[in-house]
């Protein structure tokens, strides 16, 4: 995390571009620019800026947005609900779709079912998320009129409008994720299905469904859980794009706007937070291994 913070800080400061000049506008005198720079603390030497920022981050203060003048923590709080809702719904949809598909493909290995599922899975991460999003909007919102085109309705205004707004974005974003998890589930199931105990289970006369789900899937679970964690990075990238397509007022929109306006404190805070979430989720998954596989001990 410290390294991420350093990298982000270094990257943003060592490259040309002066936010003070951008804020001051075209008609500002060099004096105005200098005043703004002093107010933002940008006139301090880099190590001083860095240590100030670090100290503040440790105290939970992520700084103040250069453009809106609001504390970054407030901005993030305002924007977090749609993002978390979208990510959570996407995960739920993706896992409930992908795991059965992967199991099915592994069970019917080599048949046309398997091949269809795999082509579907490869195409899943071969298409741009926003393109899929627009096509879904065109079909379901414009042509059929079943769902709203864009926008967001907070959970506090009722569950149904909330879900109606989120279903298309979540499907869009979920597609990539489905592809990833399906592939992993299939591969993992295939290697487990070759094990001796699976043959034993079949020989005992257990119904195929029981063998598949109770004996095989349980043991094929670890790599699948791992890829779900790794996929979070993909999910975060996708959230940024999906929020733009569906005009959701989330963290992704905040980041893109901040980046395009060089709002350093916001960019630093968001990237730090996002990387932190990523690391935490993967830590949680490491701990989950203990539950899934009693043989693993730390």
């Amino acid at each position: 995390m410290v390294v991420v913070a350093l990298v982000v800080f270094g990257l943003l400061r060592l490259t040309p571009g002066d936010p003070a000049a951008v804020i001051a506008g075209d008609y500002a005198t060099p004096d105005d620019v200098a005043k703004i720079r002093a107010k933002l603390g940008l006139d301090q030497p880099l190590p001083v800026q860095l240590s100030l920022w670090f100290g503040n981050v440790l105290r939970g203060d992520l700084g103040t947005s250069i453009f809106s003048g609001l504390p970054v923590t407030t901005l993030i709080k305002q924007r977090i609900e749609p993002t978390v809702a979208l990510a959570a719904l996407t995960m739920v949809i993706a896992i409930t779709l992908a795991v059965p598909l992967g199991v099915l493909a592994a069970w019917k290995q080599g048949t046309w079912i398997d091949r269809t599922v795999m082509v579907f899975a490869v195409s899943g991460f071969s298409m741009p998320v926003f393109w899929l999003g627009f096509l879904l909007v065109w079909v379901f919102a414009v042509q059929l009129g079943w769902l709203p085109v864009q926008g967001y309705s907070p959970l506090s205004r009722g569950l149904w409008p909330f879900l109606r707004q989120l279903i298309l974005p979540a499907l869009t974003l979920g597609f990539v994720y489905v592809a990833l998890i399906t592939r992993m589930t299939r591969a993992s199931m295939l290697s487990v299905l070759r094990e001796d105990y699976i043959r034993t289970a079949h020989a005992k006369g257990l119904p195929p469904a029981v063998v598949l789900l109770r004996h095989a899937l349980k043991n094929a679970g670890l790599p699948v859980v791992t890829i779900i964690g790794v996929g979070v990075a993909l999910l975060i990238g996708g959230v940024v794009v999906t929020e733009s397509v569906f005009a959701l007022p989330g963290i992704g929109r905040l980041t893109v706007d901040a980046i395009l306006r060089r709002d350093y404190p916001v960019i630093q805070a968001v990237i730090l937070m996002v990387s932190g979430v990523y690391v935490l989720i993967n830590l949680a998954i490491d701990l989950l291994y203990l539950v899934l596989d009693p043989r693993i001990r730390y």
Partner: protein
Amino acid sequence: MAAIASDVVFEGPVGRRRARVFARRNLTLVAGSVVLLLLALSAVAAPLWTSRDPQAMSPSVRLKAPSAERPFGTDHFGRDVFARTLYGGRISLRVGVIVALLALTTGTGIGLLSGYSRRLDSVVMRVVDGLMAIPSILLALALMALVRASVETVIAALVVPEIPRVVRVVRAQVLTLREQTMVEGARAIGAGTARVLLRYILPALVAPLIVQGTHICASAILVESYLSFLGAGTPPHIPSWGNIMAEGRTYVQLGVWIILFPGLFLMLTVLSINLIGDGLRDLLKV
């Protein structure tokens, strides 16, 4: 690779049967290559397929649906979407290939050195871990915000997030390879570090790197379209699949074809590159 090329000769009647067997065993590889070849040809030979200028505006035929005369319709300036899609392929494919080559060469260089020198390794790996924790789209986007948009800067912004992935693969391989007897033997006969790295370790890396390269190429083409879509990609006067779609987004309700066809081409391209990657992985047993 050399070994594969030498035992597969597709000439004469026996060769033709061999080719068929090869194609059946490596269905994904062959199918991917054929599709990609067609797409690359359509981009390179764009002037042969359409006589229209991808940038020529004709306001009288704005937002026309696809027809026999204009197979992909026209956009909001009356530009021909078919011509734009073909020419756009040139930029997108070029970006993908150059990004893959640059990321592979720099990544391999860094990975070789870091795998071989313990002192360098700890520093390099910390930076790599740090970079990997940042989602690549965000990183590329942040880089693009710092420079003026051009095809070269887009390529640079796409290369940076990919390098750590290559470094990881290379380093992991070097770590196992350097303990092998062949390396010990080479040292014993007096080979220097550079010679060991280049003549003994690098050749063993070729297969995994080729596979990695196809995935980088595919993802670069995708991420370029994301950058364009978010307004930080290839400048608007150069049509790439990404920014054709980015411009068409406001007109989804009036002309879905503006965004549909470039996206379809992009998807087919990335799909075929991914299939080639998967096929090569099976073929080269990586």
